[in-house]
Structures are given as structure tokens and as C-alpha cells.
């Protein structure tokens, strides 16, 4: 009996001592240690046979590990050096892991700002979904350098190698996000356009993605192509009795037409100046001197504002909008100044400081009254703040 009690007492003592000691050890543990990579991966092609057919499970494992590693780097050094390898392993194991491509956008594009690796990931993603009917495109996307591959694909699109119809069994989100990334993160309109051209050929593409193409074509100066596509959208909307799309397409037609006309005017005003050493006195002079066959009407119906001294031309609607934005900002500064000093600044230079004045966007002048604090632009003098 005595031995049993002694045995139990020894168990309790050893257990208590261990817990107390562990408690002491844990107090010394640094909880906020910096994140260190603990996963060094070989290439996906090597990992794939090693997982013995449990590809999906292994892809999930690496996927979870990648998310964890991203979190670690995101809260730490924000260096994403090994992530392309991680994504390579994941998409080699599961080439149809859509989320991996989209998350890759976030990591390699948004965070790492690495254009080459982002495009490479997207290109592989697109290629993985293509069947052998599009072998040329698939081959380019896999084997060529990412930027060269995009050029090859655009060439194939121009040559009608890709069908116009929505036939690709590819989730539209992959090329769509790629296009989004190309335009908004890397400011590459041409690459974005190529990706959107692929996106609109996917079976699951929603209607609104189609409208990105004329929008980008307009950005690239391809106004006529863009207009043609908007017109097609408008006609389709009329046929479908879709009033929302009709109004969107109508607005886009006006905007594209306006931008196109403005570009025509500006190019010809420039040529006029080069020949005559002065800007035309009025827009009609462009038609008189055969620079333009006629003066096109402003699509919004508000008319153009042309300033012969500077050669600046702008439609009235845009001018009013832009001037209001500027005036709101300047007026806010004037009011702040007034609140602090109980008087209006003598000049705008006094308000903003020498050399820091806000220039009038259309090369005209700000007219400022230091007695009343009111300000307007000579571009649209009727708008006073």
C-alpha cells in the first residue's frame, strides 16, 4: 500500500515539475519571430511523379502551404522570390486549379510587381486548358518567353486562328484577370487586349467582358475598330430590347467618337502649325485649308471650345467637368486659408507657394478675385466658385 502511494506521489511530483519547467521555458520563447521559408521545392515536373498519383491532395497541400508562406512574407519582408516555383508545383500537379492562377495574380502581380512571372503563370494556365486543336497557340504560350508568346497569340488572333465564337473550355477569369493585371498593374494595353481577346472566347464569359475590348482598342488609338464594336453592341441591345446595354453602348459611342474627333483635330492643328507657323484662327480654317473634309459635329451636342492662341481644343462637356474638379480643389484651399487668416490670399501664388501653383488644364488662365475669394477659368468663364 505504502509503495503504491509513494509511486503515485512520484508521478504527481514528476508531472508537476515538468509542467512548471515547461512553463518557465515557454516564457523565453520568442513569439514574433520573422517568417522563414521552410519549403524548398524542386520543379513541378519532378514533384509530380513523387506524389504517386495523389496529385490533387498534394496540390492542396502545396496550396495551403503557399497561402501560409504568402501570409508570412506579407506581414514580414514582402519578398516573394520563390512563389513562382510554388505555383509551378501546384499547377503541374493540378493544371486546372483555377484559384491558384487567380491567387498568383495577387502574389506575383499585385504584390511582387513581377510582370514576367505573372504573365508566365497566366500563359501556362491558359495553355493548360487548350486542346490540341489550338496547338500553335498552346505551344507559343508554353515554350516562348511570356511577352513574345503574347505577341504570337495576338498574331494568331489577327490571322483568325482562334475562332470568333465562345468555344474555349477555359474559365474566362484566368485571361480576364491577366488582362486586368496587364492594364492596371503593368500599364500594358496591348498585352491586356490579347488576354481579353482570349477571355471573350471562353464558354463561360459574361457579356460585360466583351466591352473591355473596344474600351482597350480606344485606349490604343484604334477608334474605328472600337466604334464598330460598340455599334455592334448597340444593335444587339436594340434587338434584345436591353435598355441598360443600349444606354451604355450609346454613351460609349459618343465618348469614342468624341475622343476620335479630338484626336483628328489635334493632329491636324499640329500639322497646320508646322506648315503655317501659327495655329488656325478658327476650326473652320482646317476645312478651308483641306486638312479636314468638314468640321465634324461634337457628339454630345455641346460644341467644341477652341483657343487659337494655344491651339487647344476640347469639347465643352469635358472642359466643364474638368474645370469644376480643379475649381473645387482650389476653392477648398482658399477657404482653408480664409479660416486660418481671416482673409483671402492676395494671389494664387501666395496660396500655393512659388512654383507650386496649379496650372489651368487647357493652358488658359485662372481669374481670381482676392476681395471675394471667387475664382473661375477663362476656358469656361460661366462656372464661378
Amino acid at each position, binding site marked *: 500500500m505504502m509503495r503504491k502511494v509513494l509511486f503515485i506521489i512520484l508521478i504527481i511530483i514528476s508531472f508537476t515539475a515538468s509542467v512548471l519547467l515547461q512553463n518557465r521555458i515557454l516564457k523565453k520563447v520568442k513569439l514574433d519571430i520573422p517568417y522563414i521559408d521552410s519549403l524548398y521545392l524542386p520543379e513541378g515536373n519532378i514533384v509530380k*511523379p513523387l506524389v*504517386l*498519383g*495523389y*496529385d*490533387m*491532395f498534394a*496540390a*492542396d497541400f502545396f*496550396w*495551403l502551404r503557399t*497561402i*501560409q508562406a504568402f501570409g508570412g512574407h506579407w506581414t514580414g519582408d514582402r519578398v516573394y522570390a520563390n512563389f513562382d516555383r510554388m505555383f509551378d508545383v501546384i499547377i503541374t500537379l*493540378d493544371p*486546372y*486549379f483555377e*484559384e491558384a492562377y*487567380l*491567387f498568383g495574380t495577387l502574389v506575383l502581380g499585385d504584390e511582387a510587381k513581377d510582370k514576367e512571372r505573372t504573365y508566365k503563370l497566366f500563359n501556362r494556365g491558359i495553355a493548360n486548358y487548350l486542346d490540341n486543336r489550338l496547338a500553335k497557340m498552346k505551344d507559343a504560350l508554353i515554350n516562348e518567353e511570356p511577352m513574345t508568346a503574347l505577341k504570337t497569340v495576338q498574331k494568331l488572333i489577327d490571322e483568325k486562328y482562334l475562332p470568333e465564337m465562345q468555344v474555349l473550355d477555359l474559365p474566362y477569369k484566368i485571361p480576364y484577370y491577366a488582362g486586368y493585371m496587364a492594364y492596371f498593374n503593368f500599364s500594358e494595353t496591348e498585352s491586356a487586349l490579347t488576354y481579353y481577346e482570349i477571355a471573350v472566347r471562353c464558354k463561360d464569359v459574361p457579356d460585360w467582358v466583351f466591352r473591355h475590348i473596344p474600351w482597350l482598342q480606344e485606349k490604343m488609338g484604334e477608334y474605328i475598330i472600337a466604334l464598330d464594336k460598340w455599334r455592334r453592341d448597340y444593335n444587339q441591345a436594340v434587338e434584345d430590347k436591353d435598355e441598360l446595354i443600349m444606354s451604355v453602348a450609346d454613351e460609349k459611342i459618343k465618348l469614342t467618337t468624341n475622343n476620335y474627333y479630338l484626336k483628328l483635330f489635334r493632329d491636324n492643328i499640329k500639322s497646320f502649325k508646322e506648315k503655317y507657323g501659327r495655329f488656325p484662327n478658327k476650326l473652320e480654317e482646317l476645312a478651308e485649308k483641306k486638312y479636314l473634309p468638314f468640321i465634324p459635329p461634337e457628339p454630345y451636342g455641346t460644341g467644341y471650345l477652341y483657343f487659337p492662341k494655344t491651339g487647344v481644343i476640347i469639347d465643352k462637356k469635358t472642359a466643364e467637368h474638368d474645370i469644376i474638379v480643379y475649381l473645387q480643389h482650389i476653392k477648398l484651399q482658399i477657404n482653408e486659408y480664409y479660416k486660418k487668416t481671416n482673409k483671402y490670399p492676395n494671389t494664387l501664388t501666395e496660396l500655393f507657394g512659388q512654383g507650386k501653383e496649379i496650372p489651368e488644364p487647357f493652358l488658359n488662365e485662372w481669374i481670381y478675385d482676392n476681395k471675394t475669394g471667387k475664382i473661375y477659368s477663362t476656358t469656361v468663364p460661366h462656372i464661378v466658385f
Partner: protein
Amino acid sequence: MKVFAIAKNTFKEAVRNRILYLLLIFAILMIGSSRILALLTISAHERVIKDIGLFGINFFGVLIAILVGIGLVYHEIDKKTIYTIISKPIHRYQFILGKYFGLLITVYVNLIIMTLFFFFMVLVLGIGFHISLLYAIIYTATELAIVTALAIVFSSFSNPTMAAIYTLIMFIIGRMNEDILRFAQYLARESEKLIQAGQHVPPFSKFLQGFANVICRVLPNLGLYNIRAEVIHAPDKVMISWEPLLYAFTYSAFLLLIAIFIFQKRNFK
């Protein structure tokens, strides 16, 4: 009838094996933990749960088939119980078949338990049951019929450790079968390039190509039963094909015939 009696006895014996319960508990824990792992992912929650569930069922099914199967025949010899069996009017082929079907029933009972738990998880978590999940499990069951036969073959002439190693190697090769075929094709393409360039193809390359071509045809193709990717990405397109089912039947029969042949040649004196 005699086969059935041995199978029944094998099943009773197998369910007394503690390894079986250990593996089953691990499998259930793994399938259950998929919910927790799904919390760690960014989107793709459903996929993680399905992947882990299907992986757990397949992986632990294979482990059960191997770890329980490798000792079945050996223990009968080791414990001398084989003498009481072969002294009765039972053919040796009946003994092997009984052992095989007994083990297969054990494996399938466990498979059913894991499957029911997995489907329960799927329904409770509101993922939505799709028939393709059942197809994946039917294919797993078919694959396990071959793995079980492999375990029986190696158990009929070697000790459990060696039988486990042999079965595992065959399983690995079986899973890499299609990669071996790709390797053979790669070698063929490279040889073609050398011929076109007017160069000599090394004899070792020719041998390797032939060897790879033979290996991938002779050894089991277990990659055939992996439809888990299709179940996740295109469940509506998943179909049960008769070819893999018939292949499992013919290959298992072939393996069992080998096991019977070896077992009949064995001298128990």
C-alpha cells in the same frame, strides 16, 4: 462454399487486427480534419474537403490492403495453422481464393465506413453530393482489388516485411505506369531525332525503350483508377468505363493464379 468459409474466417481474423482499427481511426480523423484545413485556404474550400476525403479513403484503403494482407498467408505458415487447413479436403487454390476474398471483404467494409463518413461530412458541410464522388470511390474499390491481390501474391512466398516492400514497390510502379509509357515515348522521339540527324542510337537507349514499353504493359496500371481530378473539375463529365473494371478483374485473376501456382509448389514439410 469452402472458399466462402475461409473468406469468412479471414475476415474474422482481420477484424481482430489492431492495425486495422488504427488505420481506420486515422482515416476518419483525416477526413474529419478536412473541415479544419478548408478554413486555412483562400476560396477552394469545397475542393479541399473533397480532395482530402477522396485521398483519405484511397490512401488508407491501400494501407489497409497492404498492411493487413501481407501477413495473411505467412502467419498461417508461421503459426503452423496451415497444417490443420491443408490436411482437410481443401484445395490450395481454395485457400488462396478464400484469403483473397476475406481480405477484400475486410478492405471493402472499411472502405464503406470511410465512404459513409465522408458522405456524411459532405452533406453536413452543405457541399452537395454529386454522383461522381461515388464513381471515384468505385474506382478506388476496383484499384484495391488489384492491390489486395498483389499483397496476397507476395504474402504467399515471403515474410511480411518483404511482402510489404514488394507490394509497395509494385504499387508505386503501378501508380507511375503512365509515366513509364511517357518515358518510353520520350526515348522513341529522341531516337527518331538521332536517326533523322544521321546519328547512331545508343543500344542502351533502345533497350531502355523496349524495357519501359514492356514494363508499362506487364505491371499493373493503377493510375487508371485515379479520376479524382475529373471529379473535382468536371464532375458532370465523369463516367464509369467498363475497361478499367474488366482490367481489374483480369489482372487480379492473373495475380491470384500466380499466387495459387506459387502456393501449390510450396512444401510445408
